[in-house]
């Protein structure tokens, strides 16, 4: 009984407002965080052509890219960029986008032109280079 009463009494103090953490304006960080994309090793595809492309890409990732190490400075990596470009447009436009990306990859002096992802990669989504691009994606 004593314990019950003591708990009851102290519960008031436990839920009382604390004065050492005053309400105040939060410092807001306005910098935009860009999340890194993840490679999908799944071979699931909507059509046979996409399946072939994915198989080639996954084989490349498994036997070459992953073994070689984390070298591509961009996000998504060049191979993922190619897959996403073809999926977002068509094989011709996707290939041209990939060729353009590959050329930009050679230029080591243009790194400041890109936003940086959480893991320090250069954000370079394919949407930015589509002929029918969404205005908000061009940053």
């Amino acid at each position, binding site marked *: *009984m*004593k314990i019950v*009463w*003591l708990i*009851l*009494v102290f519960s*008031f103090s436990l839920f009382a407002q604390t004065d050492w953490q005053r309400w105040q304006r939060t410092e807001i960080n306005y910098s935009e965080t860009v999340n890194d994309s993840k490679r999908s090793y799944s071979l699931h595809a909507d059509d046979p052509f996409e399946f072939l492309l994915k198989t080639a890409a996954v084989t490349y990732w498994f036997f070459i890219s992953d073994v070689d190490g984390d070298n591509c400075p961009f996000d998504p990596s060049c191979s993922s960029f190619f897959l996403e470009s073809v999926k977002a447009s068509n094989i011709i*436009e996707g*290939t*041209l*986008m*990939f*060729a*353009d990306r*590959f*050329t*930009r990859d*050679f*230029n080591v*002096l*243009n790194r400041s032109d890109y936003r940086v992802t959480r893991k320090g990669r250069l954000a370079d989504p394919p949407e*930015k*280079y589509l*002929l029918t*691009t969404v*205005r908000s994606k*061009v940053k």
Partner: protein
Amino acid sequence: MQTIFFLSLLSLFPSFLFSQDSALFTPEKRKAFADHLFCEKDYLRASEEYEGLQSVNKSDSLSYYIGLCFLKMNDYEKAKDYFSQLKNSSLGEESRLLFLKTSFLLNKNIEGESDSSSNQFMNKELKTSFRRLELAAQIKAGMDQTNPLSLNNHFEESDAQILKSFADKFSHPNSKSPFAAALFSTLLPGAGKIYTKNYGDGITSLIVTGLFTFLWYDNFRAGHPTRAWIFAGLTGFFYWGSVYGSYISARNYNLEKEEELNNEFQSYLSSKNYFIPTEIEGSCK
């Protein structure tokens, strides 16, 4: 046991003594609290308090302040809804002006709105503000009818000069032709990117395509046709990539310039409070 029970009761009663008085929640006090939050720029909580009051006692003034809160929080769609409801109320003139401001901030075509409303202002100052904002919208839309005389009549000389310069930039944007960029890169790989001031990528493109072209030519000359065809393919790959990349580079250049100009104009208008008298956006002592 009795002592503990007595002490417990003694510790409980002060809590009740200092408990909140229900008189704190009278509409007058709640309105004063909401006004205080508004003046403290705590617009989210101020809007919640005003909305709470609105559910008990509906008034135009409360709707106006809720609209202002949403306007200050950049929730223009909601602000516009509140101001549009008040067009024919006692706060109609102020609401119409703020309605135009929210439409402007939402990049909506305000032509239709302004034509029907511009003659409904009794207050000369608000009518001037309305006309100024209307002209600013015309400048942003790149309309040719924003003639210099009209700007001189409605603005101070210094503002008119700045607005003329903006009008010129909007109607004659310094854009790059994507087709010209693609054509330049067709003639010389990377030239299109250099044209769009993307110098590094342009020069890289020229070097890469040039290198593979040389390897293609050199292997043919040396009698290695297989290698030569591989390099020919790579040359084509980078050449057409450069043409495509130049087109996109010019398109992206134009979008970036357009966004920069919009931001610059928005920043200028914001510094002038969109030519709207600050008094109508809630007065705080």
